[in-house]
């Protein structure tokens, strides 16, 4: 495994240092780091394509070549460890020529139509061509021609734009352990292919979209709902309702030049109101609702000896993963729909009745940090209102693009509030956006409901942060409740295998498909890396702290919803609208 810079720094304190010379400057770096890492520690960002922090290094693209004195050939810096006394040149004539030639070779088999590409402006290949000053391509030859794979409801594959760096393959295998895609064929015919050559939509792909974040070019992108949303907005017959996920307010500033970790809730609301939505509501409202339903489900299972551990169900990537790889744990998974779907079901029933609008004229649009949400809202089960509960789901990237198309600069927006009542939420809902958040929100409510006492310390620090698997034990009425939190499906596997083997002590488990939770989702602005994920997480807790109410069961709009419409938590109507079921899927 490649090391994150944090791990490199930790290692630096633990191991001895070696002296190397980088571009004539003598430096001391930790033994065992690669030349690439050593250079980065010295502030020289050697260009890369196939290398990605957090994945194993492969050395395939030959862009990170450097010259090492005494070695006849250039070496790939991402896979070559430093040695004592090494003399490294990172921009000699030989290095520059080799890199440029390799880049030209990649470009010679790449469509040169950047204007038509989803990643225009965020493409690493484009950026390198600019940095290297490529003005002509000396090589001409056969070009690959592939069909674009649009079979998946979430992820679009355009192998013509693929440079075979393998970052998607390694992400899918090493981070998510889904292994939906791999290299197939050989030589010029090499292609990244879903398993068994099937279309992606028929594969075990869980739609998490982490491969999109990993892709340096436009070979992988989300299936766009932008045109459908414009059409709805521009249709005077339609009443178009927007819901924004907890993670959007801490990331949508980035495409407008704000630093990662900027909280933009008020500006975001103002911007989307101006985009033309009839109501701007908050998925956080439904997150509070989810906590009430899931909290009561957990309490019922605890009291009545139901199936434990209970596992959260908010992450549609995780749900599909479970359906493929852990169908035997299906009964452990909460029957609660995700907040996105709860919102849609409530909007098209309760809210439509309140307004006296026919739900068939209502369009519910969500902005999600997620590509799997596109799949989720199209699942057969998601029509509790009698209509598609959620019609369209935009990623953060798509939403930012729509604002830009209209000419709205988020930075210049005033601060505005969400609409009432489906825009009211608590800090407990806010933390849904970060790994550990659903667990923390659930604990805040479950504790108070079960004990009847006020929780003094609301912050459950042990379930926060970027550790892959986190655990905590909470004393509730003298009972030790053990909980665990996993994010990234590779980490989830570790916990799930324990449960499967009957070796798990946990009562309640939160699983999020994406590293960092929703703030690191496959629909988030590019780049999304460890550093940016951590900044977004900080911002999430900042939102939580800033809110007057921080427990879901104190949300007055949710309380009203139960009084006026739903009845009891987990009651008949709540069950019909807010709960769902799962289907085992093939493992191919």
């Amino acid at each position, binding site marked *: 495994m490649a090391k994150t810079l944090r791990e490199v720094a930790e290692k630096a304190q633990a191991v001895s240092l070696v002296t190397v010379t980088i571009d004539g400057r003598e430096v001391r770096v930790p033994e065992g780091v690669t030349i690439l890492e050593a250079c980065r520690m010295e502030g020289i960002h050697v260009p890369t394509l196939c290398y990605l922090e957090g994945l194993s290094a492969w050395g395939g693209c030959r862009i990170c070549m450097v010259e090492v004195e005494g070695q006849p050939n250039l070496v790939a810096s991402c896979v070559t460890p430093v040695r004592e006394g090494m003399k490294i040149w990172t921009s000699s004539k030989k290095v520059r020529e080799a890199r440029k030639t390799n880049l030209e070779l990649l470009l010679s088999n790449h469509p040169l139509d950047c204007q038509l590409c989803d990643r225009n402006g965020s493409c690493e290949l484009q950026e390198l061509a600019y940095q290297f000053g490529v003005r002509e391509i000396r090589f001409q030859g056969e070009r690959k021609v592939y069909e674009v794979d649009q079979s998946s409801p979430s992820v679009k594959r355009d192998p013509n734009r693929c440079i075979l760096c393998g970052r998607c393959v390694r992400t899918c*295998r090493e981070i998510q352990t889904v*292994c*939906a*895609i*791999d*290299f*197939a*064929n*050989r*030589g010029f015919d090499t292609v990244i*292919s*879903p*398993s*068994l*050559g*099937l279309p992606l939509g028929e594969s075990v792909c869980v739609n998490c979209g982490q491969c999109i974040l990993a892709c340096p070019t436009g070979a992988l992108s989300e299936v766009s709902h932008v045109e459908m949303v414009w059409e709805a907005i521009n249709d005077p017959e339609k009443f178009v309702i927007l819901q924004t996920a907890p993670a959007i307010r801490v990331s949508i500033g980035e495409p407008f030049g704000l630093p990662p970790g900027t909280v933009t809730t008020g500006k975001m609301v103002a911007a989307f109101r101006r985009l033309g939505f009839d109501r701007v509501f908050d998925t956080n409202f439904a997150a509070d609702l989810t906590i009430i339903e899931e909290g009561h489900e957990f309490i019922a299972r605890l009291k009545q000896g139901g199936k434990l551990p209970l596992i959260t169900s908010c992450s549609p990537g995780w749900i599909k993963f479970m359906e493929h790889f852990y169908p035997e744990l299906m009964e452990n998974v909460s029957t609660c729909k995700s907040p996105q779907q709860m919102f849609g079901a409530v909007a098209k029933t309760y809210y439509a009745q309140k307004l006296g609008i026919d739900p068939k004229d209502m369009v519910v649009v969500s902005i999600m940090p997620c590509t799997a949400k596109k799949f989720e809202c199209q699942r057969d089960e998601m029509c509790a209102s009698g209509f598609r509960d959620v019609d369209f789901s935009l990623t953060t990237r798509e939403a930012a693009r729509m604002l830009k198309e209209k000419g709205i600069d988020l930075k210049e927006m005033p601060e505005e509030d969400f609409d009432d009542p489906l825009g009211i939420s608590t800090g407990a809902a806010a933390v849904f956006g970060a790994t550990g958040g659903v667990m923390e929100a659930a604990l805040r409510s479950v504790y108070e409901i079960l004990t009847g006492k006020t929780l003094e310390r609301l912050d459950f620090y042990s379930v926060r942060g970027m550790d892959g698997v986190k655990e905590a034990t909470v004393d509730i009425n003298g009972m030790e409740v053990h909980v665990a939190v996993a994010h990234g499906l590779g980490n989830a596997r570790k916990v799930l295998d324990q449960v499967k083997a009957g070796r798990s002590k946990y009562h309640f488990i939160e699983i999020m498909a994406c590293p960092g939770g929703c703030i690191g989702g496959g629909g988030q602005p590019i780049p999304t890396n460890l550093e940016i994920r951590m900044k977004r997480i900080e911002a999430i807790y900042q939102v939580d702290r800033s809110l007057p109410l921080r427990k879901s069961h104190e949300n007055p709009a949710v309380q009203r919803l139960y009084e006026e419409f739903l009845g009891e938590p987990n009651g008949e109507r709540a069950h019909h609208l807010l709960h769902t079921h799962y289907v085992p899927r093939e*493992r*191919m």
Partner: protein
Amino acid sequence: MNTPFVYQDIEEILSRYEKEETPLLCILEDIQEKWGYLPRDVLGYVARRLGIPSSTVYGVATFYAFLEVRPVGKYVIRVCKSTPCHVRGATDVLEALKRELGIREGETTKDGKFTLEVTSCLGVCGVAPAMMVNDVTYGNLTEERIREILALYRE
């Protein structure tokens, strides 16, 4: 060739390599030996039984020129396109075969007799350009010789 497969037969093949640490290639070879190619469902089955991702199995199955993931003809012709053969006229050999058989690379003749493929080095550079028809290797190929060879198989 193209016999319908049954999972018992695959189990029998799998049992031959129980002690091997990395049995995948051997298993794929044996399956192809028996059915002429590697059916998609069989690849999925092998992956499940070995506990490895089917995307990995598919990657291996498509990497090697001698493994087929699509049904092939009775005779598979593999034309070497490595450098020595290329220099000695492999392109002409391929063109001649395409003309004679009326098919392109990767295709099978309508009568199901011939499949035309290209492959990397066959290891007989001394008699380049070369090709194989199933297990038999032919070198020093010319257009005339290709016609003679095909005639042997057309009987």
